[in-house]
């Protein structure tokens, strides 16, 4: 097996790390919470950073009319399937394909990841903006519009008395590493092909 194919094989396997490690983490800091509240987002689940964190986030958020974080979202069914299918495609490519297919897989993953992130953004936006009209506390922005409580997609942001942090976790790193490997495999394959062409010349 060619070196580039071996790397492609690794590339196809790495995203499966999403089934072992969380994809993302949102952390909420406030003076009343010396131990910040935190929530992990996995490929198929939400989970507490510390016991009962999600329950306590819900309790805090209900004051401004945010919905309770759902037990499950449709994405938890779609995303794992997507990762499984793309990994299988990756494996087939690693065994059968040439370097051009590696690029195809890389682009496919880029498109799907971007779509996933966008979906995540939409969900966050809805979660932070679709507020109960009977909310106990209503806040407006300086321009008069209703204040949203959307956590940042990536980075840190102040929301009322909280500072929210949103950063990828190990699972996302596995996905990223997989995609990087696919690109490396493509580059190596291309270089090797060039060499072969040069030799042929």
């Amino acid at each position, binding site marked *: 097996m060619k070196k580039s194919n071996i790397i492609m094989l690794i590339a196809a396997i790495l995203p499966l790390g999403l089934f072992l490690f969380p994809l993302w983490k949102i952390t909420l800091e406030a003076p009343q919470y010396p131990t910040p509240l935190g929530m992990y987002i996995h490929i198929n689940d939400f989970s507490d950073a510390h*016991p*009962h964190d999600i*329950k*306590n986030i819900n*309790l805090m958020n209900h004051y401004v009319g945010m919905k309770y974080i759902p037990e499950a979202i449709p994405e938890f069914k779609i995303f794992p399937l997507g990762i499984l299918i793309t990994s299988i495609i990756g494996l087939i490519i690693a065994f059968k394909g040439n370097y051009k297919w590696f690029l195809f897989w890389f682009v496919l993953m880029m498109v799907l990841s971007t779509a996933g992130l966008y979906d995540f953004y939409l969900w966050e936006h809805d979660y932070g903006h679709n507020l109960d009209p009977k909310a*106990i506390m209503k806040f407006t922005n300086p321009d008069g519009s209703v204040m949203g409580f959307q956590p940042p997609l990536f980075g840190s942001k102040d929301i009322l008395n909280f500072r929210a942090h949103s950063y990828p976790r190990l699972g996302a790193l596995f996905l990223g590493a997989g995609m990087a490997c696919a690109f490396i495999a493509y580059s190596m394959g291309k270089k090797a092909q060039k060499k072969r062409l040069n030799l042929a010349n």
Partner: protein
Amino acid sequence: MKTILKSTIALFAILAAFTSCNNSGKSSGKSGALAGNVAEKVYVAPGEHDEFYAFISGGFSGQLSVYGLPSGRLFKVIPVFSQDAEKAYGYNEETKPMLNTSHGFVPWDDAHHPDISQTNGVIDGRWVFINGNNTPRIAKVDLSTFETTEIIEVPNSAGNHSSSFVTENTEYVVAGTRFSVPIPQKDMPIKDYKGNFKGSLTFISVEPEHGHMDIKFQLIMPGFDYDLSHPGRGKSHGWFFFTTYNSEEANTLLEVNASQNDKDFIAAVNWKKIEEYVNNGGGTMMPANYAHNVYDESTHSATSTMKKEVLTVNPLEVPGAVFLLPTPKSPHGCDVDPSGEYIVGNGKLSANLTVHSFTKMLDAIENEKFAGDAYGIPILNFDDVLAGSVEQPGLGPLHTEFDGKGNAYTTFFISSEVVKWKLGTWEVVDRQPCYYSVGHLMIPGGNSQKPWGKYVVAMNKITKDRYLPTGPEVTQSAQLYDISGDKMELLLDFPTIGEPHYAAGCPADLIKPRSKKIFNLEDNQHPFATKNEADTKVVRDGKTVHVYMTMIRSHFSPDNIEGIKVGDRVYFHVTNLEQDYDVPHGISMIGANTSELLIMPGQTETFVWEPKQEGVWPFYCTDFCSALHQEMQGYVRVSATNAKTPLKWSLGENIE
């Protein structure tokens, strides 16, 4: 004439001692630069934690207070023997059984000597034991929740004072009676005290895993007053030592009649020997009646069981188990040094401090060098067991603790000071005044093989000019001394609750990591628990109504209840659905003859309300819990006894 001269001299000595206190007080007050340095030593910056926990008994308040050292900040008052409206202890249905005794519901006691559990002679920070002096009881406080979780009444005992000290693996917590009484109790002339009254020394076993207490045996001793006690440790592990006074067995005007003998005794008890005897079927089962109250963390409820018998042991049945060590004059404290070799008898009317040697005691016993006996119990020769004495260290010695570095610290009530002296050489090396009239003192880990000899806390009976006045009753107080150097240094005064009788302390790190933050709702086994709002309900059973209620920021469910009638007995079983640290809620009902409830996250508590008037009556949250705490309220509609108002309840919609 001679006596007049003597008493004049004594009086002079007392005055001189007080004068010298004042002098040294003033001299330390002068050094302003030093004072700044002192402030630094007790300063714990905002947000930082103290180095030690101190559990200071509340004496006649019946409670146990939790302080931080070196700051002297009060963190919590743990109700033990007294009802406490702040925490609903002894008011709610769950903890009322804790205060049950053979005399009925006794919601007060005189809490004296806390002692922390030990493993291998070192404080382990799992439980604090404390005695109820008045209606004899021993309580256990769990240091993961800082709640009283077990109380056992001590039968055949009266004035449970020489308690509650633990052996070095917490095998036993001891409960020695102060007053001798007829055993079993009976109607008899008081003048026939001598020879007829008996003193019981009770050994309560502590189950190593969960700390479950049980009376293993009671030693029935001669009718002296048993004052204080300490376990042997290290080489003397397996023995327990009890000071006695009134070896005269007087029954009236004891201040005179119990101060006649030049020497009273320290009773040395080889409990391992008695344990062996009992394990082999020895002892006499005696009818008794005493309460054993246990709080279960999973049901959040206590149960009280009346026990009907107790195993008694006559010391004469176990030869070689009990001996009497003559000790001058009416010894109070009975303190064993960390090595277990020295037993200090603080003869409160004696000019000198008497220290016995454990090794010499064993020698004398082996060679059967007895001076006589008391009711058949061998008395050893004073000179055979004496290790040495500290000459004229002060007036009115009470208690001694040790720093683990070969020094002992003794409090002197009359001369109002702490005196530091050396074990073995018996020389006084330092003294510091107390303000004023010091009783016990405490070094963290004091009753163990490993004291943390950095601080000593002196607990004073009188404060007079030390604080802002508060009418005739002024606070009692504790004083903190740094004992890390050669000389003791007074660092801090701090007020205490009730009478700071005795204290136990240990490094904060032993307890802090194990401190509970919430109770898991899933683990709540309370028979009337409601674990989510959907399950809340109101159930009538004749004239009894059970309200299954929940609370969460910032509402009760249900918040409206109708169909309650005058003459009903309404039980509010309220579950706190929170699962977040430091978010208790409270609830109280207008006209309820009880306290509010203060319910921890995941906990269920119950109070009873018997409405006596028709109307619509509010209830509300009593603990400021959230931004909308003030909105956390509800109503109960009370109809006439014969009314037809249907039983209904709701949250978020009107009752039609």
